[in-house]
């Protein structure tokens, strides 16, 4: 590697990102684009993903980043990557890190997960140290090498990155525990000095993989770093190592240091302030004791956090006066394309939509049917028919209409195994196909000849009545003009003397509960004409349902035009499709239960008339 050992990252650093976390990955790539370097992430590791690539933006163009099942695989394909950004969960992060440490091409691992057991943290740290490798974290946002490389979410929004001058190197080396304060201090440094060269948040746990001193020693060697800032915390003794290094002359550049958590002394060590590592077990571990030790060692220690900005400004101005720091020429920042979703949320962009939905909404805390949360549908005891009302017609039906729909669905649910739909369902199920395929073949038989009579009856009876045809005229019209049987009239066995009980039930219900039954009445007049010709030309169950649905929609206030549109759209037929699917599924499950073999139609049931074509 060409970069000096005190640098963990430069503008050519390539990283493997563990865990498909699209937001964090995109933020890293946005940073790369902002600082004018090539994309830093060359591979993603996600063991449970089946995809081979994922798309991301680099500026306005889209790039593909390959996804691998294991770190090993990713590292073999991308030996140029020496950084692993480990976004695995606290359950997995340890295992991922221990494996990655064994991969020779990986030198630095940043671990974000919070809540990794302390023993695991120590094992990771010791293993990394024994191999001369680096761990940043756990429980950290990571860090930034200004103008070169960003770990995950460090630095926050791009706007903040530019404001806090994290997009180009300044003169300061920064190391903190906390990620939020890392960001905060970068901002303070940008306002009171010229920004950071590199900043690392070592994480809030008791045993960070690398600590304050590890990074400050790198900064000491890095000629770009002119002075350093360390933000320590109550608890632990890591800051003493820094004090010793300053006192012994290992660190010679100016160090501004402050340990937060001076509050703890007021509460007798009983209250956990801040991070997991932030509890003083002894006087030595208090913020005050550490601040004092740092001060005595020669670090520049302010009176309080509030006084930090002034102190930073003072050191910066002094080094500038000495000529050690020169004015930086600010680089031009390319405009970063705004994210569409973000702008939309802010109401700053619009786009015509491609779909419109007026029946349901799944965007809120709970999905709604026509504005009514599903839980309310259940709690208020809505029936299936009520749900049909909401989702098909966007209405809360009155009880008489819901009960009628319920009755219709019950009546059409099945008609035995012999009808074409059920037959198809059974044949397909016996061919070993799944429920969906068998159901689909059954539903596909529904049409003008099978189950289409509801639609047809509604259409023709309504047309006839609306045009003012008298029943005799209508019968003649169907025969002479349309040249077809009247849909909804006629039954194989039932007749005037042997009425269909289902039809009786429907008629009685409608007479009793419907506000009006004018179309039924008209159809019954037609029936009188047809049964006079032939006993079995009665208004059958399909016809009854068809005309009663017209009556129902009329009574619900639908206009003639609206009802015609419903028929045209297939809404009437839909009641048959829905109801009969119950039966179809029954037939399919029956076949599955019975385990009957593949059906083959018997030869003797087929009339074979096969002739060889005449030869030319």
């Amino acid at each position, binding site marked *: 590697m060409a970069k000096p050992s005190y640098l963990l990252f430069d503008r050519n650093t390539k990283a493997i990102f563990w865990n498909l976390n699209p937001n964090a990955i995109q933020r890293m790539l946005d940073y790369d684009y902002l600082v004018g370097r090539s994309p830093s992430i060359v591979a993603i590791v996600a063991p449970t993903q089946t995809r081979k690539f994922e798309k991301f933006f680099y500026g306005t163009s889209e790039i593909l980043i390959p996804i691998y099942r294991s770190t090993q695989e990713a590292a073999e394909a991308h030996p140029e990557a020496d950084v692993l950004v480990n976004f695995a969960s606290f359950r997995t992060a340890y295992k991922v890190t221990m494996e990655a440490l064994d991969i020779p091409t990986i030198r630095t691992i940043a671990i974000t997960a919070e809540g990794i057991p302390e023993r695991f943290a120590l094992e990771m*740290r010791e293993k990394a140290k024994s191999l001369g490798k680096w761990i940043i974290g756990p429980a950290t946002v990571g860090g930034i090498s200004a103008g070169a490389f960003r770990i995950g979410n460090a630095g926050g929004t791009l706007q903040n990155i530019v404001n806090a001058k994290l997009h180009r190197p300044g003169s300061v080396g920064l190391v903190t525990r906390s990620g939020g304060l890392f960001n905060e201090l970068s901002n303070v440094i940008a306002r009171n000095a010229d920004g950071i060269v590199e900043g690392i948040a070592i994480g809030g746990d008791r045993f960070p993989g690398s600590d304050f001193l590890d990074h400050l020693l790198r900064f000491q060697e890095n000629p770009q770093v002119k002075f350093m800032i360390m933000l320590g915390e109550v608890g632990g003794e890591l800051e003493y190592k820094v004090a010793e290094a300053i006192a012994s002359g290992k660190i010679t550049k100016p160090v501004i240091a402050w340990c937060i958590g001076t509050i703890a002394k007021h509460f007798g060590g009983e209250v956990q302030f801040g991070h*997991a590592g932030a509890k003083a077990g002894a006087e030595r571990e208090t913020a005050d004791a550490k601040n004092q030790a740092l001060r005595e060692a020669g670090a520049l220690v302010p009176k309080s956090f509030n006084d930090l900005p002034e102190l930073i400004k003072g050191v910066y101005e002094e080094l500038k006066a000495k000529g050690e720091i020169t004015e930086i020429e600010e680089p031009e920042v390319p405009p970063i394309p705004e994210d569409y979703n973000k702008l939309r949320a802010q109401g700053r962009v619009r786009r015509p939509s491609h779909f419109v939905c007026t029946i349901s909404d799944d965007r809120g805390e709970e999905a709604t049917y026509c504005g009514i949360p599903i839980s309310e549908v259940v709690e208020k005891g809505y029936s299936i028919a009520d749900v049909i009302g909401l989702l098909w017609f966007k209405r809360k039906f009155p009880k008489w209409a819901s009960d009628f729909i319920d009755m219709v669905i019950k009546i059409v649910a099945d008609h035995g195994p012999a009808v074409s739909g059920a037959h198809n369902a059974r044949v397909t199920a016996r061919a070993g196909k799944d429920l969906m395929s068998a159901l689909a073949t059954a539903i596909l038989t529904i049409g003008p000849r099978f189950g289409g009579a509801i639609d047809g009856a509604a259409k023709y009876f309504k047309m006839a009545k609306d045009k003012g045809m008298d029943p005799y005229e209508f019968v003649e019209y169907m025969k002479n003009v349309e040249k077809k049987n009247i849909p909804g009239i006629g039954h194989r066995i039932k007749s005037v003397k042997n009425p269909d009980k289902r039809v009786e039930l429907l008629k009685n219900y409608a007479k009793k509960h419907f506000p009006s039954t004018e179309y039924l009445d008209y159809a019954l007049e037609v029936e009188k004409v047809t049964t006079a010709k032939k006993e079995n030309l009665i208004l059958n169950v399909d016809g009854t349902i068809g005309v009663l649905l017209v009556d129902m929609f009329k009574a619900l206030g639908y206009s003639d035009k609206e009802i015609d549109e419903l028929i045209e759209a297939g809404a009437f037929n839909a009641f048959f499709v829905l109801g009969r699917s119950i039966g179809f599924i029954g037939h399919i499950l029956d076949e599955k239960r019975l385990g009957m073999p593949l059906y083959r139609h018997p030869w003797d049931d087929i009339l074979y008339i096969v002739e060889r074509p005449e030869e030319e």
Partner: protein
Amino acid sequence: MAQRGIREFDAKRILAKNWNDYFGGEFEYDFKSILITPETDLDKIPEEHPWVKETALVAKPDMLFGKRGKLGLVLYKVNTPGDVTWEDAKKWIKEKMGEEIEIKGVKGKLTHFIVEPFIPHEQKDEYYVAMTLSDQGDKIFMSAFGGIDVEENWDKVREVTIPILASEEEAFKLIEENIPEEIEDKKTYAEFVKRLYKYFKDLHFAYLEINPLVLKGNKVFPLDMVARLDDTAQFVAGRKWGEITFPAGFGRELTPEEKYIKELDEKSGASLKLTILNPEGRVWLLIAGGGASVVYSDTVADLGFVKELANYGEYSGNPSRTETREYVKTLFDLMTRQKHKSGKPKILIIGGAIANFTDVAKTFDGIIDAMKEYADKLKEVGVKIYVRRGGPNYEIGLARIKKAAEELGLPIEVYGPETHMTAIVKKALVDDEKAESAS
């Protein structure tokens, strides 16, 4: 959190639960301990544990504080050591239950006791062993001079550090090499410590102490145990621990509000923490971020208002709007129970650093929801709100909270990242107060 103390009872229960896996074959442990809580029906104990009627007993509080012998809180004799019957123990516990005592300046009530058989032994049989996870590795402390005076005899304690990556053989070798001279049966003691070390590691203890440890042949009597577990290792060792509770430190029982937030925190991927310091305090903190929350608390104390600091807490890790609302409502509820004794309005600091990825607008929406619900109560006790925050969508968040507070008639001042993080604390507690008293 990470390292959490557990009760002596649990330390022994876990040891017994895992005994066969770690000590089986070689050692025997007859686990007989009873945990007594305010809910325990003392009259049922002899039924459930008939041995209490058959043996002399020891009873002591089990509430994470030590030196119970020196505090006179161990019942092991009425007239002579080893003469405590169940009736004696019952009477003693009834007397002590609910008694207020003071430990290191912290007052609290006695609520939990452990009852065990009295094990007759001589002082010379009292060994000591302790293990702790440290920055340098696992430290093991061993001594032939255990018992209540171990600290006075600390010079006789042998300390050995096992490097964190040491193999089992290396660790065992280090233990063997460091067994104190004074121990009579070194082989048995070493064997026990080796097994205990493996147990300590596997179960993710942060600290484990047996003092005194009495060994009679292959029979082990851990007369007293102190233990801390690394609670983040729940997903690794939770099954070996069994059902465990981590009690708050003595005298630091959680208030219902703290408990509620703790439960909220445990269910969430985000972090929500609340500690009530002084419910009558005037300064209330609603701070985002583990580091920033400490800095704000420091600043309040630096300015001389530590006595008025009502709470410590933080929310971070991008909590949802609902989680934020619940967190803030809990705080507002506490805050609006009474006016401040001075009659002055309470100060609410809504602060935070510049967030890395927490959506400021979203979390502020949660705060605004709670504000709307508590607007009347907040006005009743009087409150002045100071806001400072940066991060994703902060402009939107700041504008919304300002508008909402103004519409609700709550006095508010709002600042972004251009203002130093803790400047609002000084403004609220010093500058504005001065201006107020001057006018």
